[in-house]
């Protein structure tokens, strides 16, 4: 995802290095980082509100899926 930060967002190389360090140290989950990347890119094309909505929708679907998986697990 780092080339995307580099080429598709307005972050400076220093800022990107700081973000990468956060993932490396474990303080930010890669998935979380990828979500903020996606949101940022989409905001550039569709505006911040649309990007936020897309992020919320993705999180909802992701949570539902995880929920159904764990339910299955519990039953088995």
């Amino acid at each position, binding site marked *: 995802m780092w*080339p995307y930060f580099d080429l598709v967002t307005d972050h400076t190389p220093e800022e990107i290095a700081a973000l990468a360090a956060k993932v490396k140290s474990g303080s930010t989950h890669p998935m979380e980082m*990828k979500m903020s990347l996606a949101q940022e*890119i*989409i905001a550039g094309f569709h505006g911040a509100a649309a990007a936020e909505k897309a992020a919320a929708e*993705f999180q909802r679907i992701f949570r539902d899926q995880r929920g159904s998986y764990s339910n299955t697990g519990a039953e088995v």
Partner: protein
Amino acid sequence: MSKSTPTRRRTSNRSTKFSKENTEVRYNSEWLGKLTSYEIVRLCAHYRLARMLEHEDFRSRLAGNLPIAVHELLYPLFQAYDSVVLEADVELGATEQKFNLLMGREIQREYGQPSQVALTMPILVGLDGQRKMSKSLGNYVGITEAPSEMFGKLMSISDEMNVALL
């Protein structure tokens, strides 16, 4: 792409975002579709075969005894001609476009225009994390796609790329 004006505009922003308000989309079929055989021959007369064969793709195929069809030589010429018609000040492309962008500079000069600035960026890796992002390879995020579509695609960026670049 903007048409050349007496004074070239300066942008003070760190980045310029393309939007519906500041962007005019033009299709090169508008002018390429109208080229007469006379105009095509005239365009071809402005470039030398030896220079054309310096292109990495052509060079490697020649070296490997692989075929190069004649129409392939027209592609960079037509792209260069786009810059002539648009009177381009700047042409953007990924690094693999360098040859074509520079050809635009030469052809513009041949048509009595100032040469455009060629601005290259590194190639953006596609969603597979392996090959360049390309519509024909299907590993792309379309800039006009719906936000939710984009989100799903961006979240599918391969983990390999995450690991490799950490």
